[in-house]
């Protein structure tokens, strides 16, 4: 007897569930192509975790405009051909509203055309300038401009009366882009590059490279890479007795790199988003609240320090969410327009001001000049 009652209850419950499912609003499909494993996993890992966290948070509050978000993350392993295949899948089959990512510039450039053809919003977490320059209608990016980061460094160098530098860069897309921008902007800022070396992203010892730079009598070293080797560079440089200032890129924005470099990281100067020093910002800073919330949420959930890389994914997701809210619909054209007309959006990378000519939205003031003091990130010069 009890068995039969149980079955009836189950059937009723099932019917209710199905009914409830049928009545729920259609979810908003958002795709993400990230390099969760593979050579760019230090980018894709934090990005993927950030997105999952945000999607859960948004859905717990009932979704955007009453629609839950369905996040589809696909792991490309930094393989462009997978990025191409996934992009087509997400856009054509799953009919996502937007794609967040990819993590690397190489992959982004390969799917730029696909996003344009399929009229899907692409919010890239990769940094290369060519992604938004020349501007393509559907393609946006959230990381700051390399040229701005370099200008911040050059401004500081001018203050320190440094004019002869050595440049080291990794053989990744990020390193290549930075090197290109450094070489482009140096003459206009009165900086001469005496020596320049590109090293492999998996390098484990760069003593020979820094020795070459030291021998060229450079006043400062600029290292532009986003891989763990950036910690090895500063270690080796200090070990061979180089005492000049060492500048890093905004790729240094993860405390793990500081820990890895140990004492050698002290005094390194680099431009970065304000996420890393959120705690010591003045309360009047418009970004502080957003930064602290992201930092605390991420660290609580994943028991690891928040990094600027995850921050790019945060910005991509939240910009999309805000745009959907603003547009009041999930029509692709309307949401795209909403992004393009967004001004003053407070993200982790900075305060975004999009426009038809600027699909990145960040300028030089997105950067703060940071340094490392006692093993922690600190504002430089304060």
């Amino acid at each position, binding site marked *: 007897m009890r068995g039969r009652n149980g079955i009836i209850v189950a059937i009723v419950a099932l019917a209710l569930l199905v009914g409830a499912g049928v009545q729920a609003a259609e979810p908003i499909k958002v795709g993400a192509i990230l390099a969760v494993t593979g050579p760019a*996993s230090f980018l894709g890992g934090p990005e993927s975790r950030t997105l999952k966290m945000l999607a859960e948070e948004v859905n717990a509050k009932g979704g955007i405009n009453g629609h839950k978000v369905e996040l589809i993350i696909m792991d490309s392993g930094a393989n462009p051909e997978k990025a191409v295949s996934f992009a087509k899948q997400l856009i054509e089959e799953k009919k996502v509203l937007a794609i967040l990512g990819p993590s690397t510039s190489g992959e982004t450039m390969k799917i730029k055309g696909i996003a344009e053809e399929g009229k899907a919003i692409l919010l890239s977490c990769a940094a290369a300038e060519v992604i938004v320059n020349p501007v393509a209608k559907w393609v946006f990016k959230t990381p700051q401009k390399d040229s701005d980061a370099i200008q911040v460094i050059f401004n500081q160098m001018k203050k320190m009366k440094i004019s002869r530098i050595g440049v080291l860069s990794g053989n990744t897309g990020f390193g290549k882009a930075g090197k290109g921008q450094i070489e482009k902007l140096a003459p206009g800022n009165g900086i001469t590059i005496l020596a320049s070396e590109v090293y492999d992203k998996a390098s484990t010892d760069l003593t020979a490279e820094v020795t070459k730079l030291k*021998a060229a009598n450079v006043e400062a070293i600029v290292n532009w890479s986003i891989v763990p080797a950036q910690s*090895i560079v500063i270690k080796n440089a*200090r070990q061979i007795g180089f005492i000049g200032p060492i500048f890093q890129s905004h790729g240094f924005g993860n405390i793990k790199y500081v820990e*890895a470099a140990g004492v050698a990281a002290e005094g390194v100067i680099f431009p970065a988003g304000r996420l890393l020093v959120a705690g010591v910002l003045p309360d009047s800073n418009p970004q502080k609240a957003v930064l602290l919330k992201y930092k605390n949420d991420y660290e609580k959930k994943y028991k690891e320090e928040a990094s600027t890389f995850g921050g790019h994914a945060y910005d991509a997701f939240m910009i999309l969410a805000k745009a959907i809210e603003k547009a009041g619909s999930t029509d692709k054209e309307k949401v795209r327009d909403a992004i393009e007309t967004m001004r003053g959006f407070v993200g982790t990378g900075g305060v975004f001001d999009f426009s038809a000519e600027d699909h990145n939205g960040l300028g030089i003031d997105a950067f703060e000049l940071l340094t490392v003091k006692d093993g922690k990130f600190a504002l430089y010069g304060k």
Partner: protein
Amino acid sequence: MNLDLFLQYMVAGVTYGTIYGIVAVGFNIIYNATGIINFAQGEFVMLGGMTAVTLGRFLPLPAAILVAVLITMILGALLEILFIRWLHRPSVLRMIVITIGLSILIREAALHIWGESVRALPYFTGNSVTSIQLGGVYISPQVLWVVGISAVVVLILGGFFRYTLLGMQMRACAANRDAARLCGISAKNMVTFSFMLSAGIGALGGCIVSPITYVQYDSGVPLAIKGFTVAILGGLGNSLASVGAGMLLGILESLSISVLPAAYKDVISVAILLVILFVRPSGLFGSSEVSRLKEFG
């Protein structure tokens, strides 16, 4: 290039070279016992480093290293027992493919256990900026540890193979498996021991080198490639030669960046590998008899 610069390059070269040499010694031990080239050798190095870092959180450093080495040795033995021991006269292709597969699996397991971030043991003496200055040349004390411990390991290994019973049994097996069996030596056990020994040496190498180079779930692969370049350069099967060949390769690579862009540094080692294979596969110090491929089984 002045003398100081040249010597600094040499120091860098010796640092790399010792690391490659350690990996190559591991290759040679297994090769000698089995005729197999273990493509997963680099993974032993990586596992040693990663495990030691994890253990280092609640054990003092020497204990952490010791336990990490032991754990890796047990893993090496397990791999051999599970995947290699019961194969009957496998072809070379099969062996290569199996060890490649093992290398991939270990790597992916490491990724899912430890995540993608880099780890490092603390420097044994000093920290990341201490360096000893000799004239115009700077040497990190960790480099001295690496070279010193490696030298000790090679010496102990030599003594082990020459003077201990187990060592002599392993050498007998390497020289002539059937004859050794006839003498009552268990060839199968010798193979397991060789895997354990190789894993242990690799793991130790990973531990002592990690403060300088960091370990990451995929740091095994490039090490394996350089390692067997060095093993072949010195002559497969000849551990002492591989140490020398390691130094040679390390120094060549290091000096190469004074003439080539550093971006092509890794091309040097592979180019040397190909040249050696085409011109003199028995290596610089090997004999063509030894380089005749051993049979396994």
